[in-house]
């Protein structure tokens, strides 16, 4: 196995070739925020929160979808990046309808935590207040589009791990929306196995167990990695 050495901020890091920059950053115990990334799912580079500066590259690169190269010099925490991350989070908030005080995920939300982490005390963008709906047609679960940030974790977990492929991203631009089946009510999609994995991985209060009230959602995105790993080693076979 060949190894790449790279320099991240002030640290020298050695990591297996083919790893992602995000893996290298994590192996050096450097904190870079992520939102769409989830260990156990394929990376998509949707949220852009993990952007880093790579010397020699004009563009900022998303660490979760960039493969390491020998000799890379990476900066993860410049003021430009800090500003960029705060702006991204503000845009996510102004794009949907996030009323944390009444949200099922209040206190347990990755988006909310990131807002605190990037120092967002208000949004410099005006709120769009889009007119979005809530789908409670499923017997056990609910989807509130107002809180969806289109990270596509649900789409990937359902397709890659459960193999049911209930979810997709429908429409375009500002009308983009997570859809179940062929844009049917979730309860009408027979492919859904009621496994609840999408609820567990959703970083926000968009997907939840029906009947959960304010502050009551406790997602477990961390469980996924263990599940995927266990399966690959066939530990979980009967």
């Amino acid at each position, binding site marked *: 196995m060949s190894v790449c050495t790279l320099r991240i901020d002030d640290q020298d890091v050695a990591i297996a070739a083919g790893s992602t920059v995000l893996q290298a950053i994590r192996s050096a115990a450097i904190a870079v925020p992520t939102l769409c990334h989830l260990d156990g799912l394929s990376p998509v580079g949707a949220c852009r929160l993990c952007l880093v500066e790579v010397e020699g590259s004009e563009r900022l690169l998303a660490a979760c979808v960039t493969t390491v190269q020998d000799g890379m010099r990476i900066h993860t925490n410049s003021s430009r990046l800090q500003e960029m991350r705060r702006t991204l989070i503000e845009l996510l908030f102004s794009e949907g309808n996030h009323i944390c*005080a*009444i949200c099922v995920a209040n206190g347990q939300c990755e988006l909310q935590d990131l807002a605190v982490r990037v120092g967002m005390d208000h949004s410099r963008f005006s709120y769009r207040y889009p007119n979005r*709906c*809530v789908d*409670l*047609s499923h*017997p056990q679960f*609910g989807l*509130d589009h107002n809180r969806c940030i289109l990270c596509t974790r649900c789409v990937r977990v359902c397709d890659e791990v459960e193999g049911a492929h209930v979810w997709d991203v429908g429409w375009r631009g500002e009308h983009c929306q997570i859809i179940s089946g062929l844009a049917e009510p979730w*309860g009408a999609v027979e492919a859904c196995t009621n496994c609840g994995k999408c609820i567990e991985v959703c970083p926000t209060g968009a997907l939840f167990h*029906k*009947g*959960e*009230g*304010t*502050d*009551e959602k406790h997602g477990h995105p961390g469980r996924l990695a263990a599940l995927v790993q266990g399966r690959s080693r066939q530990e979980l076979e009967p």
Partner: protein
Amino acid sequence: MSTRRTIQIDPVTRIEGHAKISIHLGPDGLVETARFHVTEYRGFEKFCEGRPFTEMAAITARICGICPVSHLLAAARTGDKILAVSIPPAAEKLRRLMNLAQIIQSHALSFFHLSSPDFLLGWDSDPQQRNIFGLISANPELARGGIRLRQFGQGVIEALGGRKIHAAWAVPGGVRAPLSAKTRDQITAGLPEAHAVVRQGLDVLKQLLDQHLREELHVFGEFPSLFLGLVGKGDRWEHSSGGDCAGVRVMDSDGSVVADGLSEDDYASYLSEAVEPWSYLKFPYFKALGPEAGSYRVGPLARLNLCERIGSEQADRELLEYRDRGGRVVTASFLYHLARLIEILACLEQMERLLDDPEILATHVRARAEVNCFEAVGISEAPRGTLLHHYCVDENGLIERVNLIIATGQNNTAMNRTITQIAKHDLTAAELAQPQLKEALLNRIEAGIRCFDPCLSCSTHASGSMPMRVQLFGADGALLDQVSRG
């Protein structure tokens, strides 16, 4: 020179929310009527539409920062009915416990912080001093006691719900978490001090009522009206639906029961709301008797009138004395203050009883079910009076329509009658001849409203888009002046 003047006091300080009052002089130059304008508009009912009904507790709790628990409980009660479940007995008791704590803290705020500075420091005292801080220097023990009493109530809410305000702890089907023995003991430990404070408040207020607040009894809104609220089985005082509640009772000033055992489900058949162009606050009335004769009062005064007994020793003794002072049916709105203190005592005694009941520690506190009913009405006694939540949901539980009937709104007519009575009494012809209105008078009118402890942010929740405006009508009904603000 015009014989008509309008005197406006704007805004009324020390009531939650915003208000405007206008006093209308007739052609004879005397006070004809006074109006309490509510020009704040919040539209809560509209933005609940499309939300899951399970969120209603959290949404409506935000209508009011002083009595969020009342909305929480009414919303949870309505939610129980949408699920069509009867909640576990321990949950019923815990909800009652929280409502008692809520009544204690809200009444303590009203009496000790907001109203007693007026009584104890006098109407003519320096307005800068006539507040809780002035009270602290004048009667530090009472002021501190009041603060401690409120803390006690809030502490119970916090211990149960995890937060002082906005605790989304009562949920459709029950409550979220059981009570631990440790928390129960903590609450119990706070009861003796709370008892001592309310006792002290009662002594001070009763003494004042015997002496220099005597006149206020007859000026601050003494008039006949109906009274409406929940009563318990055996004609006992009641603050919550479920359990031993015997439904809604309506009583006349002479003590005759106009209607009894009414169910909240049919509220629309016996309650109606009149609208006046000069206030966002509607004027609810008992339908059968029409807007005038059907106007009623809710809250502490009504609850004490409606019951025969409270059902606990000390509070019942106070109730007897209270009736000696004000009659079997008390019509003097000023006695809302005394009624509040008696209710605090009642709450403390009932709390004690609930905490002694081993069932309160049971761990099964939540029933789970699907949406089984598409329309439901929940009722609860908030500190300020009867509170109704009415939801219609679709088959998945998304809210289609909401109607909220809130305590302050139901006292609207009574508040207007009260300030008219005060203005007529205080603004004599001689007074009106003087160009300068005395601060004391303005404060008395405000204090008339404060008898009802209105929380105005709650009561102007109705949907609609009436522009905000202030109007002046002459004795002949002609519009003399108008100010528009939106």
